[in-house]
Structures are given as structure tokens and as C-alpha cells.
């Protein structure tokens, strides 16, 4: 790894560890290997959002050309959000693309991703299905996001009705995650989800 990249990541790592946000438990950063090329980030879901109470893991890959190019970051924890792919965890955030600036750090990037959870950008979606639901049936979107937070990120509020529907599909021998994705995509209409799964 290029010298400047490794040196900067080491300095940043110190900065994050001494930050208020780590002390307050809002974000975390951990090394994955000794080469400083891959890190694991953690953010907690912001209050007053359907992600509240959840803990979300992020995969951070640092390119050789860092900090002249942005780190590659995706959600490892599955999440229902218009700007995050519900399949791959890819994030649509301008500062991770053409609005990157070399003075941004892993700390400010993690905080920006956390802010994205509070304020989605439906005009610039990563996941078209989620974005459509976000725009057209806000209530259903909030429930679905809370349900995913409960199941995948350890969030506190289980949605009984959704759990029941997933269970119905499980009983038919369908994989749990596949069942949840199909139901989420079809606004929790059991019939349409079943139809799609068996077509």
C-alpha cells in the first residue's frame, strides 16, 4: 500500500478513537487486517428514525490512492433505505463518488452515512424499489425499515404482522431472507410475493 495512504489511515485511526462520537458509542472503527487496507466501521441508527436501536456494520476498503480517491464503503448489515442497495449494500452518497474531497476522513464519512439514515435522498436512489415505496407509501416504508432493523441490526421493535407473513413463506420451504425481500418488494402482500417467488 502506498506510503501516504497507510500513514494517513494510521493518523485517522487515532483521531477516530479519540473522538466524542466513539466515546458516545455512535460510531466505531476496527482494523480487519494488519495492512490498513480494510477496516470495519460501525454506526448506530439515529434517533427518531426506523433505524433507531440498530447497529450497522460497514465494510471499508482503502484504495492505494487514498486520500486522493474515496474509500469504498458498503453496508454489510442488511438495511432497507432508498440510498442503499437492499441486495449488495452499495451506498449512493455523493461524497463517496464525485464529491469526494481529500480533507474528508473516515470519521466524517461515517457521520455522513449516519446522517443519510436520518435524511434519505429519494431523488438520487440506489435501490429503485425502496425509493418507490419511500415516495408512495411512507407508512409502509417506515414499518419495513423498522422490521429490517429489528431482524438484521438488532433493533428493538418487532413487527408482529410482518414476522407472521415471513413465517408463512418459511413454512412453504422458502429461504427466510428471500421471503423477506419478496414481501418487502410487494408491500407485504402475501399473495403477490408468493406468486413472484414461485414464478
Amino acid at each position: 500500500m502506498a506510503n501516504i495512504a497507510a500513514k494517513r489511515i494510521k493518523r485517522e485511526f487515532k483521531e477516530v478513537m479519540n473522538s466524542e462520537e466513539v466515546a458516545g458509542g455512535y460510531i466505531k472503527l476496527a482494523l480487519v487486517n494488519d495492512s490498513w487496507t480494510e477496516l470495519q466501521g460501525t454506526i448506530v441508527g439515529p434517533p427518531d428514525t426506523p433505524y433507531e436501536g440498530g447497529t450497522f456494520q460497514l465494510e471499508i476498503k482503502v484504495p492505494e490512492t487514498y486520500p486522493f480517491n474515496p474509500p469504498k464503503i458498503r453496508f454489510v448489515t442488511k438495511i432497507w433505505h432508498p440510498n442503499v442497495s437492499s441486495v449488495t449494500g452499495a451506498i449512493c452518497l455523493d461524497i463517496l463518488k464525485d464529491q469526494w474531497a481529500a480533507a474528508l476522513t473516515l470519521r466524517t464519512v461515517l457521520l455522513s452515512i449516519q446522517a443519510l439514515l436520518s435524511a434519505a435522498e429519494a431523488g438520487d436512489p440506489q435501490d429503485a424499489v425502496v425509493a418507490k415505496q419511500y415516495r408512495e407509501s411512507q407508512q409502509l416504508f417506515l414499518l419495513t425499515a423498522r422490521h429490517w432493523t429489528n431482524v438484521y441490526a438488532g433493533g428493538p421493535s418487532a413487527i408482529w404482522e410482518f414476522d407472521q407473513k415471513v413465517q408463512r413463506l418459511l413454512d412453504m420451504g422458502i429461504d427466510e431472507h428471500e421471503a423477506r425481500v419478496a414481501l418487502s418488494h410487494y408491500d407485504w402482500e402475501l399473495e403477490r410475493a408468493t406468486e413472484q417467488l414461485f414464478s
Partner: protein
Amino acid sequence: MADYFQEMGWRELEDGEQPNHLLHMARFLIDFGHYDDYLTGEWPRLPPAASKEAVKNLQEIVIQTENKECPICLKKFQVNEKAKEMPCHHLFHEKCIITWLNQTNSCPFCRYELPTDDEEYEAFKKQKLRAEQRKEDIETLHNSMFS
């Protein structure tokens, strides 16, 4: 009227010169709000490198105080160390800021933009400024009529 033509980048036709209809069509479309996303929206990729001239003309200063750090490599400057200063007064190591400006034209800290050598990008910036100006003009006109 001369000012208006100048502002619009127009001039009178030379003797025997035919008007450029394609250009007129394009201006017409832009002025009536078509191609908005492309021409007055966001530049679709990283803005181009800063112009060689602008990079050459960056001020060099000598660091006087402790505890300042270069926002690119995050290393603290030593007292008496040389640093490059952007017009927005942010300080960087020469090597750090030049690598960045060879890639894109703005301050890594505050996004202050230096000029570029890229004609297409400069035209885009001008167009964007004009669109903003026009929006303001319309608003002023609207307010003067209805308030």
C-alpha cells in the same frame, strides 16, 4: 443594448455571414428550460484539474505557529516549514495539494474552485452562473410585480 448582446455572448453577423441555426436552436432550448439537467444541473463527474497557471501561482508561505496540520496527509506542520496557500487561505504541503489539484480544481477543505484549462467545464460554470442570475432576475421581477 450593446451590453445585452455582450452579456449573451452575441455579435452582429459579418457581411455575407449566415446565422448558425443549430446554435440558435440550442440557445432556444436552453433558455426555455430544456436540457436543464445536463446544462444547469450538476457536473456529472469529478471537475477537471486546476489550470497549470493557477497551480503555479499558489502562494508559498512559511509556517509560523505550531499545531497546524495539512488536511490531506494530516501531518502537523513544523515551525519554519514551507507550505502552499490556496486563495481561500487553507494550507497544504506542496506535494499533497499539487497531487490533488492535478486531479480536480477545488480546495479539499472548503471546495473553493480554481480556474481550469478545460473549456467544456468553464462553459458549464458560466452557463450555471447565467441560469442562477436568470432565476434571480425572474424572482426580482415577480416580486416587483406582485408585492
